[in-house]
């Protein structure tokens, strides 16, 4: 019994010793990462942000974007289409920029996911969505989507190779 107790105490000492050693190891320093690029919806930074501000935009959190970039995005939009009134969604320039200036991609967790399919608006972005035609139509197409017909579609209507129906969905590289 005594011997058992002694062995037990010895082991406890050893354990305490190791525990103490571990305690004295310095904790590894936390490694931080600084944001370099970001993207929500396609082509927001490339089309609506002025060249001098593109890096700044990439380092701005979404909550800060409307105040920081809303005015210049509106000016750049009106430079592209000076005749903008409203668009197919019925949005004025200020309302449209209000939507675009928080650069987050909306996605439904309960139903169909599409950038725009004529019925659902901004419920995700599927691979086959012609996001450029949607954006061109909202930018140039006026209230009924039919204004500036030469500018509302780039007439590239799909990818150059088929997507996969199953994971990982994207085609093999060329």
């Amino acid at each position, binding site marked *: 019994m005594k011997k058992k107790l002694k062995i037990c105490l010895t082991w406890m000492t050893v354990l305490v010793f190791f525990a103490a050693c571990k305690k004295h190891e310095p904790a590894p320093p936390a490694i931080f990462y600084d*944001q370099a690029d970001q993207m929500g919806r*396609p082509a927001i930074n490339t089309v609506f942000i002025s060249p001098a501000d593109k890096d700044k935009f990439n380092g701005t959190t979404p909550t800060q974007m409307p105040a920081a970039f809303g005015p210049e995005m509106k000016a750049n939009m009106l430079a592209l289409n000076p005749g903008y009134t409203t668009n197919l969604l019925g949005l004025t320039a200020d309302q449209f920029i209000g939507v675009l200036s928080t650069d987050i*991609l909306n996605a*439904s967790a309960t139903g169909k996911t599409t950038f725009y399919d004529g019925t659902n608006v901004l419920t995700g972005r599927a*691979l086959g969505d012609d996001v450029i035609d949607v954006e061109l139509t909202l930018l140039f197409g006026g209230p009924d989507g039919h204004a500036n017909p030469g500018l509302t579609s780039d007439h*590239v209507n799909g*990818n150059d190779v088929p997507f996969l129906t199953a994971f990982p969905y994207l085609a093999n*590289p060329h």
Partner: protein
Amino acid sequence: MILSCAFVAIAGIVLAADHNDAPSVKGQTTDITDLYVFQGQNTDNLVFIGSTQGLLAPSATSAAKFDPHTLIQFKIDNNGDNVEDLVIQAIYHDGKINVYGPVRPSHTGTRTKIEKEDLIGSVPVTPYGATLPIVATGSNGIRLFAGPRDDPFFFDLDQFHKVVAGQASSFNNPGSDTFAGTNVLSIIVEVPKRLLHASTGKLGVWLTTSTQESGHSD
């Protein structure tokens, strides 16, 4: 060397979905090309695709690598306040991509760290030239892929540039897809929707890349 010069020359005139969007990321491992979020083949799941390093010609694709010092993150707002409530993080390590989350991040905003406790799996990077993609399944049934893929984006960007520059008044019909025949490096994660806790049924998602702060040697 000649190839990489040619690539830089091409990259200099092309920017698009988010390809080469800003001076400091252009041509870097941090350069995002695109983000997709859509319902999976199994409609109980959402698929997140984040791609980087765009406009890779086939001849340049095998040399394009994920960077062990570039953290790629899907940031997810699940309550409508435009602040990330969950993140899915991916970073290269030793031939594989480690994936963490979805987890509430310890730091929101532009300075973040890897949520190391929440590793959900790893997937070997599919090499260029592989006949089949290498896929893996992490915890919670989350599916993972990382590697070169066809760039899914399509756009007659050259004609758009001519329109913006006043050299053309309209698009051509048919147009010409500037991204045809080019590749990107993609991270693809398929996640059961129940793990995303979308209280209103809606999510807000954005993709970020971040660079490891200097002064650390891994």
